[in-house]
């Protein structure tokens, strides 16, 4: 196995594990949400009257927060579902950080720089700093 193939295999392993974990958490949270086991911030029955609205009007009507404000509502099943969806958005950065030590050992400086730059971009996006939230 070449170093590139070994790196690809490692990335695949982390991607597989991360995706399975995020997928399972999302499924579980959604079952609690759709099954009505845990109360939701916006009732499912109310959604057909709301999901046709632009996002700004939706937030206004429901009092739902933007930015990281939803973290305070994580006890509600719809926002617990959103948290699990956010995990899906973190799988790639996990894979990048996981292959970084191997890349450093291989001494592939250019590839290391690209991987670090990508991880920074993804973490910056996740932070919400540049998302233009009002």
């Amino acid at each position, binding site marked *: 196995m070449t170093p590139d*193939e070994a790196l690809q295999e490692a*990335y695949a392993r982390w991607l597989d594990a991360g995706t399975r974990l995020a997928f399972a958490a999302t499924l579980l949270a959604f079952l609690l949400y759709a099954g009505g086991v845990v109360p939701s911030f916006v009732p499912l029955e109310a959604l*057909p009257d709301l*999901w046709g609205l632009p996002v700004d009007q939706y937030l206004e009507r429901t009092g739902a927060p933007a930015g990281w404000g939803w973290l305070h509502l994580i006890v509600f099943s719809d926002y617990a579902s959103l948290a699990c969806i956010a995990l899906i958005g973190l*799988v*790639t950065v996990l894979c990048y950080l996981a292959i970084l030590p191997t890349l450093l050992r291989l001494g592939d400086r250019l*590839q290391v720089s690209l991987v670090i730059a*990508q991880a920074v971009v993804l973490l910056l996006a996740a932070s919400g700093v*540049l998302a*233009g939230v009002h």
Partner: protein
Amino acid sequence: MFFGYVASALASDGTAHAWWTWLLALFAVSFAIGIIAVIAGVGGGVLFVPIVGSFFPFHLDFVRGAGLLFALAGTLAAGPMLLRNRMASLRLAVPLALAGSIASFAGAVVGLSLRTDIVQVALGATVIAIAVLIWRTKDASAAGIVESDALGAMLRLRGKFEDPVEGVAIDWRTRRTLGGFAAFAGIGFLGGVFGLGAGFANVPALNLLMAAPLKLAVGTSGLIISIVNSSAAWVYIHRGALLPALAVPAILGVMLGSRIGARLLARTPTAVVRRLVIAVMLVAGTRALLRGLGVWP
């Protein structure tokens, strides 16, 4: 599209408030798209957004948010198999995804600031243009091995691709690498604006522009989408444009569908799938365009 039609029919029968019927239809549509999207290398969002945006009652803001997650989840699910089967190249994906993810983030911020009818018209026109692009795209890698350019050589964008169906091994390397960076930045921006996976353009950019073998281009396109959409998805999450009730059925459907699609990729005639995708895109794109113009609300 069939399920979109069924969903529309349900609404006209006065059961529009049965939320679960919409979510069930959304799951079924997502599952079907998940299978064909991996095989056709179109990411899925390019089918999901115009179909769901045109035939379901959800606002385009939420459809685009779900569309990004849809394409992201599908490609994440297919990624491990594509990498292990050497149908995707991580070395090729890393630099191009970096350009794409920065642009995609910017595109998502811009897209959520535009008026809905403008986005709808632009989406319809873009989807129709993409359908024509896919229709006219031909496999350039069959023409022979190309010489690496300086940037491609520096990034070591080369490898050996073994096609299990054709039984041939191709020593590939990239050309026009700088043009490839520019293309992926442009594609990423559009993907962010419309909530698409943008595989429609990734594949010709990798294959026609940069001379990667077609099947490797399809697989690598999926990997690139999984990286690029991760950044844009956060914009939709932070802006509140991601409704779990819509995103989760779509994600579950596409994750299950794309795993089947990844298994079928190596032994499925891509030409047949490509024709089907073109037909669906033309119908959904026309519907989005007419809806945006107020001709077919």
